[in-house]
Protein backbone atom coordinates (compact mmCIF):
# COMPACT_ATOMS: atom_id res chain seq x y z
CA UNK A 1 0.00 0.00 0.00
CA UNK A 2 2.46 2.58 1.23
CA UNK A 3 4.44 2.98 -1.93
CA UNK A 4 7.70 4.94 -1.45
CA UNK A 5 6.84 7.50 -4.11
CA UNK A 6 3.32 8.22 -2.94
CA UNK A 7 3.65 7.85 0.81
CA UNK A 8 0.70 9.96 1.75
CA UNK A 9 -0.89 9.34 5.09
CA UNK A 10 -4.54 9.52 5.98
CA UNK A 11 -3.80 12.53 8.14
CA UNK A 12 -2.28 14.38 5.19
CA UNK A 13 -5.28 13.70 2.99
CA UNK A 14 -7.51 14.95 5.78
CA UNK A 15 -5.30 17.98 6.24
CA UNK A 16 -5.37 19.00 2.59
CA UNK A 17 -9.12 18.54 2.40
CA UNK A 18 -9.75 20.37 5.61
CA UNK A 19 -7.55 23.31 4.70
CA UNK A 20 -9.43 23.89 1.49
CA UNK A 21 -12.80 23.31 3.04
CA UNK A 22 -12.27 25.48 6.11
CA UNK A 23 -10.81 28.31 4.05
CA UNK A 24 -13.81 28.27 1.73
CA UNK A 25 -16.42 27.90 4.46
CA UNK A 26 -14.89 30.53 6.73
CA UNK A 27 -14.45 33.10 3.99
CA UNK A 28 -17.97 32.45 2.74
CA UNK A 29 -19.58 32.47 6.18
CA UNK A 30 -17.86 35.59 7.45
CA UNK A 31 -18.38 37.32 4.13
CA UNK A 32 -22.10 36.61 4.42
CA UNK A 33 -22.13 37.95 8.00
CA UNK A 34 -20.36 41.13 6.96
CA UNK A 35 -22.54 41.65 3.89
CA UNK A 36 -25.76 40.97 5.76
CA UNK A 37 -24.76 43.67 8.20
CA UNK A 38 -23.83 46.06 5.40
CA UNK A 39 -27.44 46.11 4.28
CA UNK A 40 -28.48 47.75 7.56
CA UNK A 41 -25.39 49.50 8.93
CA UNK A 42 -21.86 50.31 7.89
CA UNK A 43 -19.34 47.59 8.60
CA UNK A 44 -17.27 49.43 11.18
CA UNK A 45 -18.88 50.54 14.42
CA UNK A 46 -17.86 52.80 17.27
CA UNK A 47 -19.39 53.37 20.72
CA UNK A 48 -21.67 56.31 21.41
CA UNK A 49 -24.04 57.53 24.09
CA UNK A 50 -27.69 57.92 23.23
CA UNK A 51 -28.37 61.22 25.05
CA UNK A 52 -32.05 60.36 25.33
CA UNK A 53 -31.24 57.29 27.41
CA UNK A 54 -28.46 58.81 29.51
CA UNK A 55 -29.41 59.29 33.17
CA UNK A 56 -26.34 61.33 34.23
CA UNK A 57 -25.27 58.66 36.74
CA UNK A 58 -21.67 59.95 36.68
CA UNK A 59 -20.19 56.49 35.93
CA UNK A 60 -18.81 57.69 32.57
CA UNK A 61 -16.20 59.69 34.46
CA UNK A 62 -14.83 56.68 36.32
CA UNK A 63 -15.55 53.60 34.19
CA UNK A 64 -13.60 54.49 31.03
CA UNK A 65 -10.27 52.74 30.50
CA UNK A 66 -8.83 56.20 29.81
CA UNK A 67 -8.13 58.77 32.48
CA UNK A 68 -9.72 61.24 32.07
CA UNK A 69 -12.63 59.55 30.34
CA UNK A 70 -13.20 59.68 26.57
CA UNK A 71 -16.70 60.90 27.40
CA UNK A 72 -17.13 64.66 27.55
CA UNK A 73 -19.98 67.10 27.82
CA UNK A 74 -21.10 68.64 24.54
CA UNK A 75 -23.17 71.78 24.14
CA UNK A 76 -26.02 72.06 21.64
CA UNK A 77 -26.05 75.85 21.35
CA UNK A 78 -29.18 75.84 19.18
CA UNK A 79 -31.08 74.41 22.13
CA UNK A 80 -29.49 76.58 24.82
CA UNK A 81 -31.52 79.28 26.57
CA UNK A 82 -28.37 81.35 27.32
CA UNK A 83 -29.75 81.75 30.85
CA UNK A 84 -28.12 84.14 33.27
CA UNK A 85 -28.78 81.61 36.03
CA UNK A 86 -27.58 78.46 34.26
CA UNK A 87 -28.17 75.28 36.23
CA UNK A 88 -25.48 73.52 34.27
CA UNK A 89 -22.98 76.14 35.37
CA UNK A 90 -24.09 77.18 38.88
CA UNK A 91 -24.44 75.09 42.03
CA UNK A 92 -27.89 74.88 43.56
CA UNK A 93 -28.41 78.19 45.40
CA UNK A 94 -25.15 79.88 44.39
CA UNK A 95 -23.89 82.61 46.71
CA UNK A 96 -23.33 84.91 43.77
CA UNK A 97 -23.95 84.65 40.07
CA UNK A 98 -20.28 85.00 39.25
CA UNK A 99 -17.55 82.66 38.07
CA UNK A 100 -16.08 82.00 41.53
CA UNK A 101 -15.28 78.31 41.98
CA UNK A 102 -17.57 77.98 44.99
CA UNK A 103 -20.55 78.79 42.81
CA UNK A 104 -19.74 76.41 40.01
CA UNK A 105 -21.25 72.99 39.63
CA UNK A 106 -18.41 71.70 37.47
CA UNK A 107 -15.73 70.07 39.69
CA UNK A 108 -12.95 70.97 37.25
CA UNK A 109 -14.11 74.41 36.17
CA UNK A 110 -14.46 73.20 32.60
CA UNK A 111 -17.34 75.50 31.64
CA UNK A 112 -16.44 79.01 30.53
CA UNK A 113 -19.16 81.61 31.06
CA UNK A 114 -19.10 84.78 29.05
CA UNK A 115 -21.49 87.68 28.57
CA UNK A 116 -23.22 87.95 25.20
CA UNK A 117 -25.89 90.66 25.62
CA UNK A 118 -28.31 91.50 28.37
CA UNK A 119 -29.53 89.13 29.84
CA UNK A 120 -27.82 86.34 27.92
CA UNK A 121 -24.65 84.41 28.73
CA UNK A 122 -22.78 81.91 26.65
CA UNK A 123 -21.45 78.65 28.15
CA UNK A 124 -18.57 76.85 26.43
CA UNK A 125 -17.15 73.46 27.43
CA UNK A 126 -13.39 73.54 27.82
CA UNK A 127 -12.94 69.99 26.58
CA UNK A 128 -9.44 69.22 27.88
CA UNK A 129 -10.68 70.01 31.41
CA UNK A 130 -13.97 68.10 31.18
CA UNK A 131 -13.98 64.69 32.87
CA UNK A 132 -17.41 63.58 31.69
CA UNK A 133 -19.00 63.47 35.14
CA UNK A 134 -22.33 64.77 33.81
CA UNK A 135 -23.00 67.04 36.79
CA UNK A 136 -23.70 69.93 34.41
CA UNK A 137 -25.85 67.68 32.22
CA UNK A 138 -27.92 66.75 35.25
CA UNK A 139 -28.43 70.40 36.20
CA UNK A 140 -29.31 71.45 32.67
CA UNK A 141 -31.73 68.55 32.16
CA UNK A 142 -33.43 69.05 35.52
CA UNK A 143 -34.03 72.78 35.34
CA UNK A 144 -32.96 74.02 31.91
CA UNK A 145 -33.38 73.18 28.25
CA UNK A 146 -31.24 70.04 28.31
CA UNK A 147 -28.78 71.52 25.84
CA UNK A 148 -25.79 69.97 27.63
CA UNK A 149 -25.30 66.26 27.03
CA UNK A 150 -22.58 63.61 27.06
CA UNK A 151 -20.86 62.17 24.02
CA UNK A 152 -17.97 59.79 23.44
CA UNK A 153 -15.29 61.98 21.86
CA UNK A 154 -13.68 59.99 19.11
CA UNK A 155 -10.40 61.86 19.12
CA UNK A 156 -9.85 60.21 22.54
CA UNK A 157 -11.86 56.97 22.43
CA UNK A 158 -9.70 53.88 21.74
CA UNK A 159 -12.82 51.94 20.68
CA UNK A 160 -12.41 48.91 22.94
CA UNK A 161 -14.16 45.85 21.62
CA UNK A 162 -16.20 45.79 24.82
CA UNK A 163 -16.56 49.37 26.04
CA UNK A 164 -15.95 49.39 29.80
CA UNK A 165 -18.46 52.20 30.33
CA UNK A 166 -21.08 50.31 28.33
CA UNK A 167 -20.68 47.43 30.78
CA UNK A 168 -21.14 49.77 33.73
CA UNK A 169 -23.91 51.95 32.22
CA UNK A 170 -27.14 51.37 34.18
CA UNK A 171 -29.34 52.89 31.47
CA UNK A 172 -28.11 50.85 28.47
CA UNK A 173 -27.36 54.21 26.87
CA UNK A 174 -24.18 52.98 25.17
CA UNK A 175 -24.80 51.77 21.64
CA UNK A 176 -22.68 50.76 18.69
CA UNK A 177 -23.13 53.29 15.90
CA UNK A 178 -21.78 53.25 12.33
CA UNK A 179 -18.28 54.74 12.19
CA UNK A 180 -19.31 57.19 9.47
CA UNK A 181 -22.03 58.67 11.74
CA UNK A 182 -20.17 58.50 15.02
CA UNK A 183 -22.20 61.04 17.06
CA UNK A 184 -25.75 61.09 18.41
CA UNK A 185 -26.16 64.82 18.81
CA UNK A 186 -28.95 66.69 20.51
CA UNK A 187 -30.58 69.86 19.34
CA UNK A 188 -31.41 71.17 15.93
CA UNK A 189 -27.94 70.93 14.47
CA UNK A 190 -27.16 68.41 11.78
CA UNK A 191 -26.26 65.06 13.30
CA UNK A 192 -23.25 62.96 12.41
Amino acid at each position, binding site marked *: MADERKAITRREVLGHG*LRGLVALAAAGGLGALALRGKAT*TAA*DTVWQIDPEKCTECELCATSCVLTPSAVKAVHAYAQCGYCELCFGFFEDNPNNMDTAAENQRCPTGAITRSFVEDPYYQYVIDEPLCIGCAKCVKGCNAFGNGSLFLQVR*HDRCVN*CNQCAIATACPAQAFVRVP*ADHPYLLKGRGPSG
Partner: protein
Amino acid sequence: MKRLYPIYCWLLLILPTFAFGEERFPPPEFESNYHAPVVQNPPPHTVWPVALDISLLVVALALAAYLTLKRRSRRGVFALTLGCIAYFGFVRHGCVCPVGSIQNVALAIGQPQYALPFVVAAFFLLPLAAALFVGRVFCAGVCPLGAAQDIVLLKPLKVPAWLEHALSVLPYIYLGAAVLFAATGSGFLICRYDPFIAIYRMSGTPLMLGITAGMLALSTVVGRPYCRFLCPYGVLLRWLAPFARWRVRIAPKACVQCHMCQDACPYGAIRPPTPAENPGGRREGKSRLVLYLILLPVLLAAGGALGYFGGAVLSGQHTTVRVANRVWLEEHGKVKGTTLESDAFHRHGQPVDELLQNAAKIRKQFDFGGLLLGGWIGLVIGLKLVFLSIRRRRTDYEADPAACVACGRCYRFCPEEHAPAEVLEKIQ
Protein backbone atom coordinates in the same frame (compact mmCIF):
# COMPACT_ATOMS: atom_id res chain seq x y z
CA MET B 1 -56.65 61.02 26.20
CA LYS B 2 -58.17 62.73 29.23
CA ARG B 3 -57.32 59.70 31.32
CA LEU B 4 -53.71 59.94 30.18
CA TYR B 5 -53.34 63.62 30.94
CA PRO B 6 -52.29 63.28 34.62
CA ILE B 7 -49.74 60.69 33.61
CA TYR B 8 -48.41 63.04 30.97
CA CYS B 9 -48.07 65.87 33.50
CA TRP B 10 -46.36 63.54 35.92
CA LEU B 11 -43.95 62.40 33.23
CA LEU B 12 -43.14 66.00 32.39
CA LEU B 13 -42.35 66.71 36.01
CA ILE B 14 -40.06 63.81 36.73
CA LEU B 15 -38.77 63.08 33.26
CA PRO B 16 -37.40 66.36 31.99
CA THR B 17 -35.28 64.71 29.30
CA PHE B 18 -38.12 62.55 28.16
CA ALA B 19 -40.01 65.61 27.04
CA PHE B 20 -37.48 65.99 24.29
CA GLY B 21 -37.48 69.22 22.38
CA GLU B 22 -39.57 70.98 25.01
CA GLU B 23 -37.61 74.09 25.92
CA ARG B 24 -38.29 75.82 29.20
CA PHE B 25 -36.33 78.88 28.12
CA PRO B 26 -36.78 79.56 24.40
CA PRO B 27 -33.43 80.15 22.70
CA PRO B 28 -33.05 83.93 22.39
CA GLU B 29 -33.09 86.05 19.25
CA PHE B 30 -29.88 88.01 19.64
CA GLU B 31 -29.75 91.72 18.78
CA SER B 32 -25.98 91.85 18.73
CA ASN B 33 -24.13 90.11 15.97
CA TYR B 34 -23.67 86.92 17.98
CA HIS B 35 -22.80 83.59 16.41
CA ALA B 36 -22.77 80.44 18.48
CA PRO B 37 -19.44 78.64 18.54
CA VAL B 38 -19.18 75.66 16.20
CA VAL B 39 -18.77 72.38 18.07
CA GLN B 40 -16.14 70.21 16.46
CA ASN B 41 -16.97 66.52 16.33
CA PRO B 42 -13.72 64.74 15.52
CA PRO B 43 -14.18 61.55 13.47
CA PRO B 44 -12.94 58.21 14.83
CA HIS B 45 -9.37 57.57 13.78
CA THR B 46 -10.01 54.21 12.21
CA VAL B 47 -9.30 54.39 8.51
CA TRP B 48 -5.55 54.08 8.28
CA PRO B 49 -4.91 51.85 11.30
CA VAL B 50 -7.40 49.28 9.95
CA ALA B 51 -5.34 48.70 6.81
CA LEU B 52 -2.13 48.96 8.82
CA ASP B 53 -3.36 46.55 11.51
CA ILE B 54 -4.30 43.87 9.03
CA SER B 55 -1.12 44.17 7.00
CA LEU B 56 1.03 44.15 10.13
CA LEU B 57 -0.80 41.06 11.37
CA VAL B 58 -0.09 39.30 8.08
CA VAL B 59 3.57 40.35 8.19
CA ALA B 60 3.90 39.27 11.83
CA LEU B 61 2.34 35.87 11.14
CA ALA B 62 4.58 35.32 8.14
CA LEU B 63 7.62 36.39 10.12
CA ALA B 64 6.68 34.11 13.01
CA ALA B 65 6.33 31.17 10.62
CA TYR B 66 9.67 31.97 9.00
CA LEU B 67 11.49 32.35 12.32
CA THR B 68 10.09 29.20 13.92
CA LEU B 69 10.00 26.82 11.00
CA LYS B 70 12.76 27.98 8.66
CA ARG B 71 15.27 29.92 10.74
CA ARG B 72 14.53 27.90 13.91
CA SER B 73 15.60 30.90 15.94
CA ARG B 74 14.32 31.45 19.45
CA ARG B 75 16.04 34.83 19.51
CA GLY B 76 14.21 35.92 16.41
CA VAL B 77 10.88 34.83 17.89
CA PHE B 78 11.70 36.73 21.07
CA ALA B 79 12.44 39.89 19.08
CA LEU B 80 9.18 39.47 17.20
CA THR B 81 7.38 39.02 20.52
CA LEU B 82 8.74 42.34 21.75
CA GLY B 83 7.74 44.03 18.49
CA CYS B 84 4.20 42.69 18.70
CA ILE B 85 3.91 43.71 22.36
CA ALA B 86 4.91 47.21 21.29
CA TYR B 87 2.47 47.51 18.36
CA PHE B 88 -0.53 45.26 19.06
CA GLY B 89 -0.12 45.83 22.79
CA PHE B 90 0.89 49.35 23.61
CA VAL B 91 0.17 51.24 20.37
CA ARG B 92 -3.19 49.61 19.59
CA HIS B 93 -4.06 49.02 23.27
CA GLY B 94 -4.61 45.33 22.58
CA CYS B 95 -7.89 45.92 20.73
CA VAL B 96 -9.18 44.30 18.58
CA CYS B 97 -7.48 40.95 19.11
CA PRO B 98 -8.29 37.56 17.58
CA VAL B 99 -9.16 36.16 21.02
CA GLY B 100 -11.87 38.76 21.53
CA SER B 101 -13.02 38.61 17.91
CA ILE B 102 -14.71 35.27 18.64
CA GLN B 103 -17.36 37.27 20.46
CA ASN B 104 -17.94 39.65 17.56
CA VAL B 105 -18.49 36.66 15.29
CA ALA B 106 -20.90 35.14 17.85
CA LEU B 107 -22.69 38.48 18.23
CA ALA B 108 -23.04 38.82 14.44
CA ILE B 109 -24.57 35.33 14.30
CA GLY B 110 -26.85 35.87 17.30
CA GLN B 111 -27.97 39.45 16.68
CA PRO B 112 -28.74 40.14 13.02
CA GLN B 113 -28.64 43.92 13.48
CA TYR B 114 -24.92 43.79 14.34
CA ALA B 115 -22.58 43.92 11.37
CA LEU B 116 -19.26 42.13 11.61
CA PRO B 117 -16.59 44.75 10.84
CA PHE B 118 -14.13 43.74 8.15
CA VAL B 119 -11.09 44.24 10.37
CA VAL B 120 -12.57 41.98 13.05
CA ALA B 121 -13.32 39.26 10.50
CA ALA B 122 -9.72 39.51 9.28
CA PHE B 123 -8.32 39.29 12.81
CA PHE B 124 -10.51 36.28 13.49
CA LEU B 125 -9.59 34.44 10.31
CA LEU B 126 -5.91 35.17 9.64
CA PRO B 127 -4.38 33.32 12.64
CA LEU B 128 -6.73 30.38 12.03
CA ALA B 129 -5.71 30.23 8.38
CA ALA B 130 -2.07 30.42 9.46
CA ALA B 131 -2.66 27.53 11.88
CA LEU B 132 -3.89 25.38 8.99
CA PHE B 133 -0.62 25.87 7.16
CA VAL B 134 2.11 26.51 9.73
CA GLY B 135 0.61 25.65 13.13
CA ARG B 136 0.15 27.95 16.10
CA VAL B 137 2.65 30.60 15.01
CA PHE B 138 0.17 33.26 16.12
CA CYS B 139 0.70 32.13 19.72
CA ALA B 140 4.48 32.03 19.27
CA GLY B 141 5.13 35.71 19.00
CA VAL B 142 2.19 37.67 17.65
CA CYS B 143 -0.50 37.38 20.34
CA PRO B 144 0.02 40.13 22.93
CA LEU B 145 -1.63 37.97 25.60
CA GLY B 146 0.72 35.07 25.03
CA ALA B 147 3.66 37.43 24.79
CA ALA B 148 2.97 38.95 28.22
CA GLN B 149 3.18 35.49 29.80
CA ASP B 150 6.08 34.32 27.67
CA ILE B 151 8.45 37.11 28.60
CA VAL B 152 7.87 36.88 32.37
CA LEU B 153 8.47 33.11 32.52
CA LEU B 154 11.36 32.54 34.93
CA LYS B 155 11.36 29.00 36.26
CA PRO B 156 8.72 26.77 34.71
CA LEU B 157 7.34 24.00 36.89
CA LYS B 158 6.05 20.81 35.34
CA VAL B 159 2.29 20.67 35.70
CA PRO B 160 1.34 17.11 36.70
CA ALA B 161 -0.39 15.22 33.89
CA TRP B 162 -3.65 14.71 35.78
CA LEU B 163 -3.91 18.44 36.54
CA GLU B 164 -2.94 19.41 33.01
CA HIS B 165 -5.65 17.17 31.55
CA ALA B 166 -8.26 18.35 34.02
CA LEU B 167 -7.50 22.03 33.44
CA SER B 168 -7.35 21.64 29.66
CA VAL B 169 -11.16 21.35 29.68
CA LEU B 170 -11.50 24.92 30.98
CA PRO B 171 -10.83 26.72 27.66
CA TYR B 172 -13.71 24.82 26.06
CA ILE B 173 -16.05 25.87 28.86
CA TYR B 174 -14.83 29.46 28.62
CA LEU B 175 -15.32 29.43 24.85
CA GLY B 176 -18.85 28.08 25.21
CA ALA B 177 -19.78 30.62 27.86
CA ALA B 178 -18.25 33.51 25.92
CA VAL B 179 -20.13 32.55 22.75
CA LEU B 180 -23.41 32.22 24.67
CA PHE B 181 -23.00 35.60 26.35
CA ALA B 182 -21.95 37.35 23.15
CA ALA B 183 -24.68 35.79 21.01
CA THR B 184 -27.40 36.80 23.47
CA GLY B 185 -26.02 40.34 23.66
CA SER B 186 -25.14 40.03 27.36
CA GLY B 187 -21.64 41.39 26.93
CA PHE B 188 -18.16 40.23 26.07
CA LEU B 189 -16.84 37.97 28.85
CA ILE B 190 -13.41 37.48 27.29
CA CYS B 191 -12.82 41.23 27.18
CA ARG B 192 -14.25 41.83 30.63
CA TYR B 193 -11.90 39.36 32.28
CA ASP B 194 -8.95 39.79 29.93
CA PRO B 195 -5.99 39.39 32.30
CA PHE B 196 -3.42 41.35 30.30
CA ILE B 197 -5.28 44.21 28.63
CA ALA B 198 -4.78 46.37 31.74
CA ILE B 199 -1.02 46.33 31.05
CA TYR B 200 -1.46 47.58 27.50
CA ARG B 201 -3.98 50.24 28.44
CA MET B 202 -1.97 51.08 31.54
CA SER B 203 -5.22 51.37 33.46
CA GLY B 204 -7.89 49.10 34.81
CA THR B 205 -10.40 48.45 37.56
CA PRO B 206 -9.10 46.97 40.84
CA LEU B 207 -10.59 43.61 39.85
CA MET B 208 -8.82 43.65 36.47
CA LEU B 209 -5.51 44.74 37.99
CA GLY B 210 -5.84 41.97 40.57
CA ILE B 211 -6.41 39.37 37.85
CA THR B 212 -3.45 40.79 35.92
CA ALA B 213 -1.12 40.66 38.92
CA GLY B 214 -2.19 37.13 39.81
CA MET B 215 -1.84 35.87 36.27
CA LEU B 216 1.58 37.48 35.79
CA ALA B 217 2.81 36.04 39.09
CA LEU B 218 1.56 32.61 38.07
CA SER B 219 3.17 32.98 34.64
CA THR B 220 6.63 33.22 36.19
CA VAL B 221 6.44 29.60 37.42
CA VAL B 222 3.81 28.03 35.16
CA GLY B 223 4.36 28.41 31.43
CA ARG B 224 1.57 30.43 29.80
CA PRO B 225 -1.26 29.56 32.21
CA TYR B 226 -3.81 31.64 30.28
CA CYS B 227 -2.94 30.11 26.89
CA ARG B 228 -3.06 26.56 28.17
CA PHE B 229 -5.90 26.59 30.65
CA LEU B 230 -8.19 29.44 29.62
CA CYS B 231 -7.67 30.87 26.15
CA PRO B 232 -10.83 30.26 24.10
CA TYR B 233 -9.14 31.15 20.81
CA GLY B 234 -6.51 28.52 21.60
CA VAL B 235 -9.31 25.94 21.35
CA LEU B 236 -9.89 26.83 17.71
CA LEU B 237 -6.16 26.88 16.97
CA ARG B 238 -5.83 23.53 18.75
CA TRP B 239 -8.35 22.00 16.36
CA LEU B 240 -6.69 23.30 13.23
CA ALA B 241 -2.98 23.07 14.06
CA PRO B 242 -2.74 19.23 13.82
CA PHE B 243 -3.61 19.54 10.15
CA ALA B 244 -0.86 22.06 9.48
CA ARG B 245 1.07 21.57 6.27
CA TRP B 246 4.37 22.56 7.91
CA ARG B 247 4.94 22.35 11.63
CA VAL B 248 7.58 22.38 14.34
CA ARG B 249 9.90 19.38 13.97
CA ILE B 250 12.36 19.19 16.81
CA ALA B 251 15.10 16.92 15.52
CA PRO B 252 16.20 18.04 12.06
CA LYS B 253 17.23 14.51 11.04
CA ALA B 254 16.76 11.67 13.50
CA CYS B 255 15.74 11.89 17.14
CA VAL B 256 18.44 10.59 19.48
CA GLN B 257 15.90 10.02 22.28
CA CYS B 258 17.70 12.26 24.77
CA HIS B 259 14.48 13.87 26.12
CA MET B 260 16.27 17.21 26.48
CA CYS B 261 13.60 18.91 24.38
CA GLN B 262 10.89 17.61 26.67
CA ASP B 263 12.70 19.03 29.67
CA ALA B 264 13.21 22.33 27.87
CA CYS B 265 9.58 22.81 26.87
CA PRO B 266 7.93 25.01 29.51
CA TYR B 267 4.45 24.31 28.12
CA GLY B 268 4.34 20.54 28.37
CA ALA B 269 3.80 20.25 24.64
CA ILE B 270 6.41 17.60 23.83
CA ARG B 271 5.27 14.00 23.96
CA PRO B 272 7.71 11.18 24.68
CA PRO B 273 7.87 7.98 22.64
CA THR B 274 5.26 5.46 23.69
CA PRO B 275 6.46 2.27 25.34
CA ALA B 276 6.41 -0.80 23.12
CA GLU B 277 3.97 -2.58 25.38
CA ASN B 278 0.78 -1.01 26.68
CA PRO B 279 1.36 -0.81 30.44
CA GLY B 280 -2.26 -1.50 31.30
CA GLY B 281 -2.67 -4.31 28.82
CA ARG B 282 -4.61 -4.14 25.57
CA ARG B 283 -7.76 -5.71 26.92
CA GLU B 284 -8.10 -3.28 29.78
CA GLY B 285 -7.49 -0.31 27.52
CA LYS B 286 -10.18 -1.50 25.16
CA SER B 287 -12.79 -1.98 27.85
CA ARG B 288 -12.03 1.48 29.23
CA LEU B 289 -12.51 3.01 25.80
CA VAL B 290 -15.86 1.23 25.40
CA LEU B 291 -16.94 2.46 28.82
CA TYR B 292 -16.10 6.05 27.95
CA LEU B 293 -17.85 5.78 24.59
CA ILE B 294 -20.98 4.63 26.40
CA LEU B 295 -20.51 7.40 28.94
CA LEU B 296 -20.26 10.07 26.21
CA PRO B 297 -24.00 10.40 25.42
CA VAL B 298 -24.78 10.17 29.14
CA LEU B 299 -22.48 13.12 29.87
CA LEU B 300 -23.93 14.99 26.90
CA ALA B 301 -27.48 14.54 28.16
CA ALA B 302 -26.61 15.29 31.78
CA GLY B 303 -24.74 18.45 30.77
CA GLY B 304 -27.62 19.55 28.55
CA ALA B 305 -30.16 19.02 31.32
CA LEU B 306 -28.06 20.88 33.88
CA GLY B 307 -27.46 23.70 31.39
CA TYR B 308 -31.17 23.95 30.57
CA PHE B 309 -32.02 24.53 34.20
CA GLY B 310 -28.93 26.64 34.83
CA GLY B 311 -29.79 28.96 31.93
CA ALA B 312 -32.09 31.01 34.17
CA VAL B 313 -29.17 31.76 36.50
CA LEU B 314 -26.92 32.76 33.60
CA SER B 315 -29.61 35.01 32.11
CA GLY B 316 -29.19 37.29 35.15
CA GLN B 317 -26.04 38.55 33.45
CA HIS B 318 -28.11 40.17 30.69
CA THR B 319 -28.91 43.77 31.62
CA THR B 320 -32.55 43.58 30.53
CA VAL B 321 -33.17 40.46 32.64
CA ARG B 322 -31.36 41.99 35.60
CA VAL B 323 -33.42 45.19 35.41
CA ALA B 324 -36.62 43.18 34.97
CA ASN B 325 -35.83 41.05 38.03
CA ARG B 326 -35.13 44.14 40.09
CA VAL B 327 -38.21 46.03 38.91
CA TRP B 328 -40.38 42.97 39.58
CA LEU B 329 -39.01 42.72 43.12
CA GLU B 330 -39.59 46.42 43.66
CA GLU B 331 -43.15 46.27 42.30
CA HIS B 332 -44.00 43.39 44.59
CA GLY B 333 -42.50 45.12 47.61
CA LYS B 334 -39.88 42.44 48.14
CA VAL B 335 -37.01 44.91 48.21
CA LYS B 336 -36.74 48.44 49.46
CA GLY B 337 -35.22 51.28 47.51
CA THR B 338 -34.08 51.38 43.90
CA THR B 339 -30.85 50.79 42.03
CA LEU B 340 -29.27 53.00 39.36
CA GLU B 341 -30.58 50.55 36.78
CA SER B 342 -34.18 50.53 38.00
CA ASP B 343 -34.07 54.33 38.32
CA ALA B 344 -32.96 54.57 34.71
CA PHE B 345 -35.76 52.23 33.66
CA HIS B 346 -38.42 54.24 35.47
CA ARG B 347 -37.08 57.45 34.00
CA HIS B 348 -37.40 56.20 30.42
CA GLY B 349 -41.06 55.52 31.08
CA GLN B 350 -41.10 52.16 29.32
CA PRO B 351 -44.11 50.07 30.45
CA VAL B 352 -43.21 47.42 33.01
CA ASP B 353 -45.07 44.73 31.04
CA GLU B 354 -42.95 45.38 27.99
CA LEU B 355 -39.77 45.05 30.06
CA LEU B 356 -40.97 41.78 31.61
CA GLN B 357 -41.90 40.43 28.17
CA ASN B 358 -38.48 41.32 26.76
CA ALA B 359 -36.82 39.69 29.75
CA ALA B 360 -38.93 36.55 29.29
CA LYS B 361 -37.81 36.37 25.64
CA ILE B 362 -34.16 36.63 26.65
CA ARG B 363 -34.65 34.02 29.39
CA LYS B 364 -36.02 31.65 26.75
CA GLN B 365 -32.88 32.25 24.66
CA PHE B 366 -30.83 31.40 27.72
CA ASP B 367 -32.79 28.20 28.35
CA PHE B 368 -31.88 27.04 24.86
CA GLY B 369 -28.37 28.49 25.10
CA GLY B 370 -27.86 26.86 28.50
CA LEU B 371 -28.93 23.53 27.01
CA LEU B 372 -26.35 23.93 24.26
CA LEU B 373 -23.64 25.12 26.65
CA GLY B 374 -24.29 22.28 29.10
CA GLY B 375 -24.33 19.73 26.30
CA TRP B 376 -21.12 21.21 24.94
CA ILE B 377 -19.39 20.90 28.32
CA GLY B 378 -20.61 17.30 28.69
CA LEU B 379 -19.39 16.50 25.19
CA VAL B 380 -15.98 18.06 25.82
CA ILE B 381 -15.45 16.13 29.07
CA GLY B 382 -16.64 12.91 27.43
CA LEU B 383 -14.40 13.35 24.39
CA LYS B 384 -11.47 14.24 26.64
CA LEU B 385 -11.91 10.91 28.42
CA VAL B 386 -12.20 9.06 25.10
CA PHE B 387 -9.08 10.67 23.66
CA LEU B 388 -7.16 9.96 26.86
CA SER B 389 -7.86 6.26 26.47
CA ILE B 390 -6.88 6.07 22.81
CA ARG B 391 -3.28 4.99 22.44
CA ARG B 392 -1.21 6.61 19.77
CA ARG B 393 2.13 5.22 18.76
CA ARG B 394 5.16 7.48 18.82
CA THR B 395 8.71 6.37 18.25
CA ASP B 396 10.41 9.73 18.84
CA TYR B 397 10.02 12.81 20.98
CA GLU B 398 7.55 14.98 19.11
CA ALA B 399 5.89 18.33 19.62
CA ASP B 400 2.15 17.84 19.99
CA PRO B 401 0.94 20.13 17.18
CA ALA B 402 -2.22 21.00 19.12
CA ALA B 403 -0.37 22.13 22.22
CA CYS B 404 2.86 23.48 20.69
CA VAL B 405 2.89 27.28 20.55
CA ALA B 406 6.00 27.27 18.35
CA CYS B 407 8.05 29.36 20.76
CA GLY B 408 11.25 27.69 19.49
CA ARG B 409 12.80 26.98 22.90
CA CYS B 410 13.37 23.28 22.20
CA TYR B 411 15.53 23.71 19.10
CA ARG B 412 18.52 24.92 21.06
CA PHE B 413 18.45 21.88 23.30
CA CYS B 414 18.32 19.28 20.56
CA PRO B 415 21.82 17.81 20.14
CA GLU B 416 21.02 17.18 16.50
CA GLU B 417 20.59 20.89 15.90
CA HIS B 418 24.23 21.88 16.28
CA ALA B 419 26.31 18.74 16.71
CA PRO B 420 28.54 17.60 13.86
CA ALA B 421 27.54 14.34 12.21
CA GLU B 422 30.41 12.27 13.69
CA VAL B 423 29.46 13.22 17.27
CA LEU B 424 25.91 12.19 16.59
CA GLU B 425 26.99 8.85 15.30
CA LYS B 426 28.89 8.24 18.53
CA ILE B 427 25.84 9.07 20.63
CA GLN B 428 23.69 6.75 18.61
